[in-house]
């Protein structure tokens, strides 16, 4: 084996122009370029929307409803509708989604079935939201006979965010160490007792994050709601809104921009939506960090 040992020779430092250096420089420029472009785009969109929208934000816009008689525009009904639809969708999807996730990670023994369900829920997240709208229209309006409104819209959104809740909850359940489960079962705890006392408290951060992100999606959704929740701009109380045509903020943005030609109002709504989204994203981060400790 001795003859195989290579005699090391000092290698000359490469000087001047080399292919390797060129590649390195090129890659650096590309990477930096992409990063800067992304930031510039984001800054431009946010900046432009605020530039166009902020001047038209007013207390009156936020606290009144549109009136043809007085020729005023107000988006209070749409703000309320957005809140209603968040409420309806979350009240249904949260127990459903966490329940499904708990079943999949803690109870299900048929691994193939679990894989299939996971695949299905992953595929669901990739479906364009207008198709959820169409499905919602057929399912809730035509089959179940619901009128256009918050309930039909909320149920459609449930289908849409259910996979999000399931996946985020599953991921956080999987981070709970098995040693906790064993420790609990070895004390004679029943399975559900173990899940409730040891698993869920340690996964709550992921569940809350999933909820906040889902609310973000609900706030931002428009296509799925066009057919199901409708375009109504009238202020209703919660129970009336369930079955009367009710535009959320995003749908109202569409209505004002394209049908009424009120571009300025559309930009003002956009400012509100962007601010809400930002707040939701920050609170998701904050909640995840806070609850982890």
């Amino acid at each position, binding site marked *: 084996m001795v003859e195989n040992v290579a005699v090391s020779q000092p290698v000359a430092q490469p000087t001047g122009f080399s292919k390797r250096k060129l590649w390195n420089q090129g890659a650096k420029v590309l990477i930096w370029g992409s990063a800067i472009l992304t930031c510039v785009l984001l800054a431009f969109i946010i900046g432009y929307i605020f530039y166009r929208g902020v001047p038209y934000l007013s207390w009156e816009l936020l606290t009144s409803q549109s009136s043809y008689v007085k020729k005023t525009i107000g988006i209070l009904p749409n703000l309320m509708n957005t809140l209603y639809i968040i409420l309806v969708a979350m009240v249904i999807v949260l127990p459903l989604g966490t329940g499904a996730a708990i079943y999949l990670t803690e109870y299900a023994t048929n691994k193939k079935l679990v894989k299939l369900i996971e695949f299905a829920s992953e595929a669901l997240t990739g479906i364009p939201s207008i198709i959820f709208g169409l499905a919602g229209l057929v399912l809730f309006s035509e089959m179940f006979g619901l009128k256009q409104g918050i309930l039909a819209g909320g149920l459609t959104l449930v289908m849409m965010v259910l996979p999000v809740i399931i996946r985020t909850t599953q991921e956080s359940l999987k981070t709970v160490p098995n040693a906790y489960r064993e420790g*609990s079962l070895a004390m004679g705890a029943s399975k559900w007792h173990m899940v409730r006392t040891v698993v869920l408290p340690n996964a709550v951060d992921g569940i809350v994050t999933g909820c906040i992100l889902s609310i973000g999606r609900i706030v931002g959704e428009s296509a799925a709601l066009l057919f199901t929740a409708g375009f109504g701009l009238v202020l209703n109380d919660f129970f009336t809104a369930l079955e009367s045509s009710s535009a959320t903020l995003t749908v109202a943005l569409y209505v004002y921009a394209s049908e009424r030609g009120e571009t300025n109002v559309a930009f003002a709504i956009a400012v509100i939506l962007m601010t809400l989204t930002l707040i939701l994203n920050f609170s998701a981060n904050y909640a995840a960090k806070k609850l982890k400790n």
Partner: protein
Amino acid sequence: MDTIMEVKDLNLWYGDHHALHDINVDIPKNQITALIGPSGCGKSTFLKTLNRMNDLVENVKITGNIIYNNENIYAPKVDVTWLRKRIGMVFQKPNPFPMSIYDNIAYGPRTHGITSKVKLDTIVEKSLKDAAIWDEVKDRLNTSALGMSGGQQQRLCIARALAVEPDILLMDESTSALDPISTGKIEELAVELKKKYTVVMVTHNMQQAVRISDYCAFFLLGDLVEFSKTEEMFSMPKDRRTEDYITGRFG
């Protein structure tokens, strides 16, 4: 010697792998029984059959009887939660829950329906005293158990197991993740505990088996090769394989 558990013709398969072959042994009451043998010999698997923790493993198949309290613990009518309350377990790595020291100890009693604060206080204090850790933690019962040292965490886990008043305490290499001083404390504790409880422990450490166990079971490749009093096994082993193992010829 009083017997607390009788294992009869126990066989266990993980899928196609036949991991335990016809195990027959009587576990003596109020004694420390050590299970020894090389890695993969089935000693931990055997330990986990005693409180049915193997039920959690997929594709596991068990035949034979384990008689405890005049009943086969694998009989359909046996309530596993009751069984595991009677037969506590301490794991290889300390696994306190991410809760306060108090809540860790109170976990078991609460699980089994005790809610009275007075009762829980008494149980917590008694369990921590039994596990010889009361003096170290009595002033910080409401701080997180995760802030304790590894050795303290393991004694906390023992206290947690004692809090539901088991008959038998199973220890699965419970000192292997600890430093020598903590190990010493847990060994002393085990010897103390056998007055009230029966201890069955898996250990990789021959000296530990000699130091604290009364009976010793030597496992090899899924067979129980030899079961006898510890001093007999280490002074005049009956089986050639036992002798080879304890004199360090393999393992």
